[in-house]
């Protein structure tokens, strides 16, 4: 059974004149790892909100078609139930941290799963250690720096150990060291179990080795969908304003000048290796 299915799905916010999503058909299999890209305002967060039930249960509007998560129809499943199937990170961490202490906040998810106390405690400590916020555990979440808030929100999501993770710009507020650490952690879990990942992120050079597939939204519709390295280098997605890493742009310039590459480098190291054994025509 696929993890996520959008079937000719569309959504228009109440009071809006135009749909924010139109004719979305997208299937994500269990274990697939997908980058969702697209310009600001293209509908990325709207698409993610349609997975955890915020749409249509909290945000009202007109829905067309159907969304399924793990075989459950989102429109007839409560957000509380969906929260046990999907780990969801909001774009703004302040929308998901609300307890009086960091530790209580991280424990909130696992408590709602009804796990035994002992296991909750272990998971919370594990998540705090992972996000390197053990020393902030007794602080009030709203008195932290923005990046620290982001780490608390991520710890809360990871402590639930979900099989499906949906993350809206998880790296945007993290410092580079923490961002790399998180990506490595996810890569490691992916190696051990079939983790389904759907991530919105503009800094894609950080994610190139974690994610296999890339879907591009443009004005509420799907503009591109395929293997990440192919989509990122393709001309079709230009109108979507995806932030193309410098190395990918460089390769395109070199190809225009007659150099031929046999795969699509995204990191500096990959490009240098390929420059070493290039064909020139």
């Amino acid at each position, binding site marked *: 059974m696929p993890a996520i299915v959008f079937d000719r799905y569309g959504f228009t*916010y109440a*009071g*809006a004149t135009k749909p924010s999503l139109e004719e979305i058909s997208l299937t994500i299999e269990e274990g697939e790892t997908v980058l969702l890209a*697209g*310009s*600001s*305002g293209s509908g990325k*967060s709207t698409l993610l909100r349609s997975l955890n039930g915020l749409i249509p249960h909290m945000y009202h509007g007109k829905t067309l078609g159907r969304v399924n998560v793990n075989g459950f129809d989102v429109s007839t499943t409560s957000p509380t139930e969906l929260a046990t199937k999907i780990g969801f990170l909001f*774009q*703004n961490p*302040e929308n998901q941290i609300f307890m009086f202490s960091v530790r209580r906040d991280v424990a909130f998810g696992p408590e709602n799963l009804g796990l035994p106390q002992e296991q909750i405690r272990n998971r919370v400590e594990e998540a705090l250690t992972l996000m390197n916020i053990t020393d902030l555990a007794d602080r*009030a979440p709203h*008195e*932290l*720096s*923005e*990046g*620290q808030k*982001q*780490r608390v929100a991520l710890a809360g999501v990871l402590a639930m150990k979900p099989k499906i993770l949906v993350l809206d*710009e998880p790296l*945007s*507020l*993290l*410092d*580079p*060291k*923490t*961002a*790399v650490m998180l990506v490595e952690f996810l890569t490691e879990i992916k190696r051990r179990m079939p983790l389904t990942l759907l991530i919105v992120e*503009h*800094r894609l*050079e950080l994610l190139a080795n974690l994610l296999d597939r890339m879907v591009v939204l443009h004005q509420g519709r799907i503009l591109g969908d395929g293997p990440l390295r192919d989509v990122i280098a393709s001309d079709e997605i230009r109108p*979507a*304003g*995806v*932030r*193309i*890493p*410098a*190395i990918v*742009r*460089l390769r395109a*310039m*070199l190809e225009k*000048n007659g*150099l031929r590459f046999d795969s699509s480098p995204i*990191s*500096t*190291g990959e*490009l*240098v290796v390929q*420059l070493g054994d290039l064909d*020139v025509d």
Partner: protein
Amino acid sequence: MIEFSDVDFDYPQGQPALRDINLSIKTGELVAILGGNGAGKSTLVRHINGLLKPTRGTVTVFGNNTRKASVAEISRRVGIVFQSPDHQLFAETVEKEIDFALRNFGTSLQFRHERIRDVLDFFDLQKYRSSSPLKLSSGEKKRLSIASIMAWKPDILILDEPTVGQDAFQQDKLKELVGLWTDEGKTVVIVSHDLEFLWGLVPRLIILSDGSLVADGKTEEILMKEELIQGESLHKPQLLDLAVMLRGTPPYHSFQNASDAAKWILKSRE
């Protein structure tokens, strides 16, 4: 001119957030402040517009001690775009949001109309003119918060994580905005983790760590200091990394953009 001397800052809850900061930024300079989460970047820039006052030491802006000058006096010249737009946006409509400061500063009706139109056009927000800011996407909210500061043309522009939520087109707009300010001899301070954005744009970096200033200098020199990169949660942007791999350690004029790199590579293969 912005001057920090011996500045300490503790949050009321007793969190020491800045320690012994000495720093000077000249009028017309473009600088970026970097450092790990919680290093004190947002706390530091909030001292420049007098929103926070140092616990010890002094901050002077255009010769005024921020502890003595009134907030109104400083805020007329220093515009700060917060890291989180939700802390900044409160008007009923996008248009009113931008008009708020303009009206406060007592500018004429015609001037206000022109400025509102110009900044909405600049950031592609014209279509939301009469919408509620709450109905915008996150990136759109961020652009609105930048537009509403840009509208009244402050002498010092402070951008806290401006690239969050911004696509390639909007990022180019941000670079254009920075150019507009520096061309007029105004000062721009950017706080950011986004080195790919800063590279080729910002000539000077200031690095904070745990509330202290640990490095301050030319972008390329700072990013070549390995111990600093390891310890302070920095990384080399792709083009600098590439220059080092292909050409060894600078000094040389390293690749500022992808076409610099392309030219060098093509030439070296001739």
